[in-house]
């Protein structure tokens, strides 16, 4: 699927949790071809500062619309948060290589840390449609930061124990991996968490796909700006070789590429 670019109308843009917004955009072409783990790039609308489009995972896609779940962390996301229904935004997508989901006899475990929850609802939906009901393991710092509809039925860990298990989401994963049966892991979150997830999976010989982040310019594999070092030396492009990678392809000893 080649990506497309359009002026997408905002259908809604609501604050779900302090500083985290859910934006729904009218983009039938993107909605139709999007796969879980892919992303879109959205250009902040005012002037040339900030300049570059911002990448966001596709949170959901249906009925001609795509949505993103984003945290306000800087000026670009701040501009986005100030927009309202009916305004239009330049959007490009779907971009990148998503999670490889296939039918088959496996238990999918979706491991999300913090904003890493963003791509999970869409992924869970598509897996479920293939008859592979996923287990979602979701960790964040504290109860107040928990995102997403409780209907996701996630098993939860918080750093401070204010909800679910006290500790890291990787703790939940360790238990999950101990169970019998063939498991596949799909993970998204901060670098340190993904490194740990990758390690656990490698030890248990469980296939593991991780969704990475990097600063991006083109989002298309043209500028080589979003490099991450691969395990055999040399670099991979997060935008076009990923953002979802087989965790064994990544050199986890490098500094996070952000």
């Amino acid at each position, binding site marked *: 699927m*080649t*990506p*497309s*670019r359009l002026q997408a109308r905002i259908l809604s843009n609501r604050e779900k949790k302090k500083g985290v917004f859910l934006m729904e955009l009218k983009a039938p072409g993107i909605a139709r071809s999007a796969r879980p783990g892919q992303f879109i790039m959205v*250009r902040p609308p005012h*002037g*040339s*500062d*900030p*300049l*570059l*489009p911002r990448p966001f995972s596709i949170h959901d896609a249906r009925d001609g619309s795509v949505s993103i779940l984003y945290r306000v962390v800087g000026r670009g996301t701040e501009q986005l948060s100030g927009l309202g229904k009916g305004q239009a935004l*330049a959007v*490009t997508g779907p971009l990148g290589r998503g999670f490889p989901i296939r039918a088959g006899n496996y238990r999918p475990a979706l491991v999300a840390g913090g904003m890493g929850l963003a791509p999970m609802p869409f992924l869970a939906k598509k897996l479920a449609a293939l008859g592979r009901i996923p287990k979602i393991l979701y960790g964040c710092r504290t109860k107040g930061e928990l995102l997403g509809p409780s209907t996701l039925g996630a098993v939860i860990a918080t750093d401070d124990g204010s909800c679910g298990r006290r500790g890291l989401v990787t703790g939940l994963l360790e238990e999950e991996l101990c169970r019998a049966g063939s498991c596949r892991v799909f993970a998204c979150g901060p670098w340190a968490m993904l490194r740990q997830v990758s390690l656990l999976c490698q030890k248990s010989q469980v296939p593991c796909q991780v969704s990475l982040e*990097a*600063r*991006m*310019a*083109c*989002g*298309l*594999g*043209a*500028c*080589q*700006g*979003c*490099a*991450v*070092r691969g395990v055999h*030396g*040399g*670099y991979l492009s997060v935008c*076009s070789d990923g953002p979802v990678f087989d965790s064994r392809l990544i050199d986890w000893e*490098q*500094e996070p*590429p*952000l």
Partner: protein
Amino acid sequence: MRSNPPGRVDTAVILAGIRLKNPVMAASGTFGYGTEYRGLSPASAYGAIITKTVTLEPRPGNPPPRLCETPSGMLNSIGLANVGVDRFLREKLPALRNAGTVVIANIAGRTIGEYARLAGIMDRAPGVSALELNVSCPNVAHGGVAFGVNPLTASRLTRAVRRAFRKTLIVKLTPNVADMAPVARAVAAAGADALSLINTLYGMSIDTARRCPSLGNVTGGLSGPAIRPVALYHVYRVSRAVRIPVIGLGGIMTADDAVQFLLAGASAIQVGTANFIDPATPEKIVKGLVAYCRRHGLKSLRELTGWLAG
């Protein structure tokens, strides 16, 4: 010769012997090898595509992070990450040749000899219409000072490449000098057919939370609208200092920006960073240039070059 139909504006330019259907070119390093934007922006919208810098051997490029945004600009430290000339010829050039536009190969080397060898290879490469020399790279024989800083070095380099390459030779100059004119004149005298300016300005950014440079390579090259006034200044001055055509670039985002460069003296322009922001930029610029000509009663985009009032 038949005259144009009323209101019709001729978009073609002849640039040092090559005919371009329009004067808008994709800048090196920002349009990949011409196929990455497929679907979003046909390479054929451009009058010419300039490749990412190609070197003799493949290069991995610099450690990440390689990008960092700055006010109205961006820093990059991609380095000369590229597949090397062999894979370029085998894997990239065939698709590029068929993209429906003129192909210009941008090359760099560590020594003058490397440049000349590459130029020889490109001279025989089918479908490569012109060469653009990236002279902003460190000259290993001269303590890492870029080839393009010293008029004498730049001139030697140009002469060596000129001997190895028979088609159109463009030299892309660095703005990180006190005065671009002497280098421009030296390079023109050494046989360059045209000049491109500007390459990126040196820049840096620091992540104060982590107390370290924002780029893995510490420093990088600044591009985008932030540098447009600097680029325009150099194009204005250099186009008055040499007789060969000047291709202007640096922060061009809109047709109005492109008009500024043409009026200042450029014969063509390149679009770099704007590709990241709106891949439809080349079409929009060509349309806007035509509209500007129409408003001012000009029949050809060529008439814009140097057309400052007074």
